[in-house]
């Protein structure tokens, strides 16, 4: 942390304006109540307080390297106290040396110094404590600010790590079942087996590459989704069908990469899991008020209670919030026979969040 007075010109000026006022005030007191002459009053006040102002600046470092707080140790208090005694003695000594060697009034200062000593000491202690307190407030405020900043940063780091973890997570059920399908296809339909290997490789490559803040076009996202769907279609055959309705302007829209993938995976998983017969998946996309709206829906057969998806959906919601800084971009609509997730993707991305892929 920088010195709050020395690092800021305006505060430094203010600091010395205050000291000039104190010097003026002190001179007036000396003249009016102690019947000093004008010139010696001004000289005495100026010398003692200009000296003190330098000590005052140094007090910041004292405050910086010890820690006076509610939980401070006894020896820290003693350090402060010792520094104060040493500081004030030094201050008094320097004053004496300067005043008694300064021009025509040196004799006067020599005579009055001893009698002025108690008031000088109490003034010194008072100012010492006052300045220490002011610096304490400064440093406390700064530390608090740092702490809050660090907390916010830490939180963001954790969030990002979590996002990284979730989006690169490849569902092992999907992976091994797909490999099992390839195993079967090699025996039954070798040509299709090769096709499936290529599709699966594409999927794996995309899943491993993606970064949490990467943005790409809906067209790219769609081709990934349909590639994924075609793998699942090979696995499930008749048991899985899809309906798509996409308007052309959507293709150019931008969205975080692989954000729809987990939604499609969930839709297929829960659709198929609940269905004895055919599971229907719907994928709709359109532009609305300069937002890309994507709807992914799956059929639900019977009273299959959807379990354990809350976390995955929350992570998508968080990722959207993280990229767009907006709440409620993901909505869940649960009906008796369908489970629908609706996503709104704003097309004007805040500058600081946008990272081109």
């Amino acid at each position, binding site marked *: 942390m920088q010195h709050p007075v020395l690092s800021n010109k305006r505060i430094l000026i203010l600091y010395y304006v205050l000291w000039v006022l104190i010097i003026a005030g002190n001179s007036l007191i000396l003249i009016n109540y102690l019947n000093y002459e004008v010139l010696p009053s001004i000289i005495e006040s100026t010398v003692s307080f200009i000296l003190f102002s330098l000590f005052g600046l140094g007090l910041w470092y004292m405050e910086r390297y010890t820690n006076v707080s509610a939980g401070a140790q006894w020896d820290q208090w003693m350090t402060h106290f010792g520094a104060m005694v040493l500081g004030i003695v030094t201050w008094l000594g320097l004053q004496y040396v300067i005043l008694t060697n300064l021009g025509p009034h040196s004799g006067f200062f020599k005579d009055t110094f001893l009698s002025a000593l108690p008031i000088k000491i109490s003034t010194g202690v008072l100012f010492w404590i006052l300045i220490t307190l002011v610096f304490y407030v400064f440093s406390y405020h700064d530390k608090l600010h740092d702490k809050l900043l660090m907390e916010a940063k830490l939180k963001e780091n954790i969030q990002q790590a979590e996002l990284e973890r979730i989006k690169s997570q490849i569902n*092992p*059920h999907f*992976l*091994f*079942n797909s*490999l*099992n*399908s*390839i*195993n*079967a*296809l090699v*025996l*039954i339909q070798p040509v299709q087996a090769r096709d499936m290997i290529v599709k699966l490789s594409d999927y794996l490559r995309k899943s491993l590459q993606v970064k949490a803040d990467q943005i790409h076009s809906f067209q790219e996202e769609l081709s990934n989704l349909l590639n994924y769907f075609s793998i699942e279609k*090979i*696995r*499930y*055959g*008749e*048991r899985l069908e899809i309906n798509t309705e996409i308007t052309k302007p959507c293709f150019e829209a931008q969205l975080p990469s692989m954000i729809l993938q987990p939604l499609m995976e969930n839709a297929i998983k829960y659709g*198929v*899991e*609940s*269905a*004895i017969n055919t599971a229907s998946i719907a994928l709709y996309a359109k532009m609305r008020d300069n937002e890309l709206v994507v709807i992914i829906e799956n059929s639900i057969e*019977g*009273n*299959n*209670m959807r*379990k354990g998806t809350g976390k995955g959906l929350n992570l998508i919601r968080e990722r959207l919030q993280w990229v767009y800084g907006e709440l409620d971009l993901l909505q869940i609509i649960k009906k008796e026979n369908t489970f629908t997730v609706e996503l709104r993707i704003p097309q004007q991305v805040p500058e600081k969040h946008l990272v081109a892929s």
Partner: protein
Amino acid sequence: MKALIVEDEPLARQLIAQYLSVEKQISAILEASNGFDAVRIINKEHPDIVFLDVELPKLNGMEVLELIDFQPAIIFTTAYDHYAISAFEKNAVDYLLKPFSEDRFRQALGKVLNNEFTGIKDLKNEMPGTIERVVVRTGNKIKVIYIDEIKFLEAQDDYVNIVMEGERHLKHQTMKFFERNLPEKDFIRVHRSYIVNANCIDQIENYEKDQYLITIKENNSQKIPVSKTGYNKLRNALNF
């Protein structure tokens, strides 16, 4: 020898069927694509060997085993199961991790064909981990009960009475099984004969010194007795 393949993916079924087709001892290959069909076919056709996928729609492989009257030799197939594999070992002749090689398949099949297995042990207390649903048979139907729907469980001889909103079902099972396998934060064994869903408790009243009774929401007629240890468990679970 009759074989049944229970797989929800057609290619997975075809692969096993293909492997089985060259086995001379296999006289018939039956197929099922979901748990309900599997239960029905096993009870009706009495296959000698069943290839049973663990992940199935509606009823999973373990639940199928709970509901069958006839005990065939079971070979589980699973793509990836992080917790259950050790449990399957106890209940099945073998289990195959997908994708499996033809050699591995024939090795598993060989155990059945050569009578190397000693039949399936009692499944009743082997349900792994925490259950999310309970399956019961009512007449010739199979009912899937999600545990959120359960208000409380009551011991009744060798059975457990599962009490829900407006209906109750008997299941051949022990209280100990439910106590161990239902999520313990929701289901509390308050008495030797009762397990209560904590979310369904309306009130707990003190009717005598150290004697408490639970009233269930929207079901005021039946009061559930609470034992001394049961009361302590309730206090811990509900923080009072």
